[in-house]
């Protein structure tokens, strides 16, 4: 059938998602909020990027989550391939640099 590791097209959306993660917005809804991408766009992009090997996923520290009274979040990080992809994205869509340069959610709360 299809090639499993087929690379997703480098689109503006994947670029924004990669950039958001790189800037510390590591959770699904957090990425949606910071990127302003519509509901239903971010998750498919995450799944594609993850399947393509651009992202790795890990769990938030359980104690930290408990201290905040919520279940642990699954957070995404860039792999080496992801980083390379992000560089390509930045080259192609310089605008994404500005978009995600905002403070993180945590910082905003603190401020």
């Amino acid at each position, binding site marked *: *059938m*299809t090639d*499993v590791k087929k690379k997703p097209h480098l689109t503006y959306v994947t670029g924004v998602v990669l950039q958001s993660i790189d800037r510390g917005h590591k*959770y*699904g*809804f*957090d990425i949606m909020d910071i990127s302003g991408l519509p*509901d*239903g766009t971010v*998750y*498919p992009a995450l*799944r594609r990027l993850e*399947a393509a090997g651009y992202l790795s*996923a890990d*769990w*938030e520290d359980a104690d930290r*989550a408990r201290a905040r*009274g*919520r*279940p*642990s*979040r*699954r957070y995404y990080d860039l792999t080496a391939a992801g980083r390379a992809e992000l560089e390509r994205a930045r080259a192609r869509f310089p605008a994404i640099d500005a978009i995600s340069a905002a403070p993180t959610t945590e910082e905003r709360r603190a401020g």
Partner: protein
Amino acid sequence: MTDGRAPWTTFARGYLLVVSVVVPGRRRSDWRREWLAELTHEAGRGRGGRFWRRVLLAIPDSIRLRLLSVRAAPPTIGAAHRAALVPSPGRMVAGLARDARQSARGLRRQPGFTTLTVLTIGFGIGAATTMFTLVDGVLLEPLPYESPDRLVAVWPERWFSASLFELLEREAESYEALAVWGPRSFTGFDDAGSERLWGARSSGDFLTLLGATPAVGRLYADVDDDAGADGGVVLTHAFWQSRYAGRADAVGSRLRIANGEMGERSLPILGVLPPRFEIQPGYYPEYRAPLDFAVTVPFDREAARYRSSEYRVVGRLRPGVSRERAAEELESLAAAWMIEHGLDDDFGESVDVVSLKEFMTGPVRPGLILLFGAVGLILVTAVVNVANLLLARGLFRQRDVSVRLALGATPRRVVRLLLAESTLLGLVGCVVGMALAVAGVGALRRLLPPTVPRLESVGLDAGALGFGVALALVTGWMIGILPGWYAGRADVRVGLVGSGARGATAGAGRRRTRATLMAAEIGLAVVLLASAGLLTRSFWRLHTLDPGFDADGLARVYVRPGAGAVGSAAEFESYFEQVDQRIEAIPGVAGAAATSQAPITGDGGVVGAYRADAAEPETPPRVRWRQVSPDYLRVVGAPLLAGRDFDRGDVAGAEPVAIISEQAARTLFPSEDPLGRRIRTGFESDTDVTVVGVTGDIRLLGPAEAVVPIVYRPYPQTGEVRERMGFAGSDIVVRTAGPLPGLQVRLRDAVREVDRLGLVASFETMPEMLSRTLEERRTTLVLLGAFAIGVLLLGAIGIYGVTGYLVRERRRELGVRLAIGASAGRVAREVLTAVLRIAAVGAGVGVAVSIALAGLLRHFVVEIAAIDVAVLTVSTALALAVAALAAFVPAVSAGRTDPVAVLAAEG
């Protein structure tokens, strides 16, 4: 914070558990954890539409993971063997996903059929979810009080006298606390003096007992009950919002109120009740938004002894005490109390302790349950409809199925495919249904009269969502099971050989099933039409029922003298005499009269009455006590049956006289002529009043309410009562010869001529008021009627579709017959007759079921018999006519079958 979030977390957990079955096994628990964290994060920020959108996002995400995993692992030969031999949940789910994809493709190819089916299911699920939301919010959700399951209405049918309440307080062991409250007993005015407010009152511990926490300020406590305490009022949240714009400084300001027993007083505002605090069902306040506020009028136990008592008792059961035990205790205490007071009152079954929620929602419970039942029938019709369509359509898929079976698919596999298809239809229908439910709940909240208790707590929530989804799954399963069953048993040879252009025909079993389903559709339609018809007739009877007075051309207005206009009882009379005269001078006005309370305006002035020549009983029969000006009976058009009307001679100092209604005459003087006899009432317990006239009964409380006994007293003779009890104003009834536009303004001007500061409020015509009392019935009727029409339409769609398939299926036979000389008309007639025969059987069963169910409608069908031949006939005729209409087009097309084309295709 955490508390508020907990139910949403629970919901999210359950929801994700269900959705995650689609996710490949190795990722499932991971996936659930991730989404739980995400949704919890979102729920913490409020549960708007955004939250729900994101909840829905989990579904495509789960499917995406499944698809990724299918692609990710191309099956090896070994894996394929294992897959074929060993069923595993993961593979079954993968199979389901494949089935779903296949079904989706199949359904996309038939957009007409798919749309019709989805809309039908959506309509059913939408209606059912809407009614579920209503029933859940009004009947099922716990009351917003502290441990609401221990709150009870003690002896709800009893108006408590002080001695009985004291006995209960002293002796009863079932309760942690007891409190009294009185509905409808309070009228007040705000400081501006421009508006009339209605209130309710209760003992000081009442609010504490319920566990109400104030929104602002404090609620009154026991001490406010004590004699000499300043007292105070507590505002309802809604009134606080509307009048004081939710300002905190409202607390501490004063509210001026007037009441029969305590006169006019200015009371401090102590606090504001929490939102949605209510206890009294069916409260018809002056204004559409109930402005009831609880007031600490001391529960004057001596005053209550004169048995104008309007007090009810609410209790909080001790933990572990059952309602049954409390009821037994109450019964023995009541019996002892009866003996102690030498009473012989057969209170029979009424001694009971019921849950407070049941007491509050009692009046609307039957209506909601009826509508919920009706909606159930809609859903059943939708299911029957779609099942029948799928069944008919299944025939055309027989070839497809046969090929699969011939190639080695197991019947199970085929059934599963069809079930997947119907489940998919159900789920898509569910989405449509949810959209309809959102609209439906919004519409219902506007449509339902505000007297429906707890309407504010009605809203689509997680429970309703779950209900809708569960319904969709069950519906999908139910509509798929029959066609799937037949398909799984299909004969491969017939399917392969008999298929194609020639088309297969249904076997006898399948034909019977199809006919049964069709008959069921018509039967269901008849049941709903007959119920709606009965309610309509009953409603019409009530609407046109003679209220005992002439309501047409009668209007009512409330007038209260401005400050300083009236200083004594005599001035009060002359004030209203002048007002009446000015009103009568308005061109087109035929008469005006004052009364302490006009008909249909509520239930006040309730007092015990008894014969003056006998000892005062402990619980004398309760009458409605009305003060009227001499012209009153003439103006409202209540007939005088015996004796004389009031006249100008009935003044203070003359012999005290009363006119009593027929019902009062029957109650007080069962076997004697009441004329010339003397009676006493609680309001004037030391005055013997001579009965000088008997007037016809009127429906004082509304057309659907029981006739109550009334005692009329002339205004000039009740000055002492008014002074003692502080009647501040009076209703005025106005008779006009015909419709009089601008009457309200003219009435105000007429009063202003007498008293520039006078309050003129609550203008309403009597026909409007009568129709308002029937509002709940009207709403039930409108909804039930709409449901009946919905079921009829669904039935029509079903018959149309199935007949269409039937004609296509018999095309070959019809073509041959037309070729050898049958006329088109004859063929069409035959098809139509076949459908009508089935419909007639269904209608017959529907009539039988309607008759059997007639008892359930007893609550709604008043003034007419519950089995009504005319209604049944009309319902049956209507259902059959619609069936004939629905079958007409396919029948005609049957007659137009082109024999050449059919036979050519054959060759």
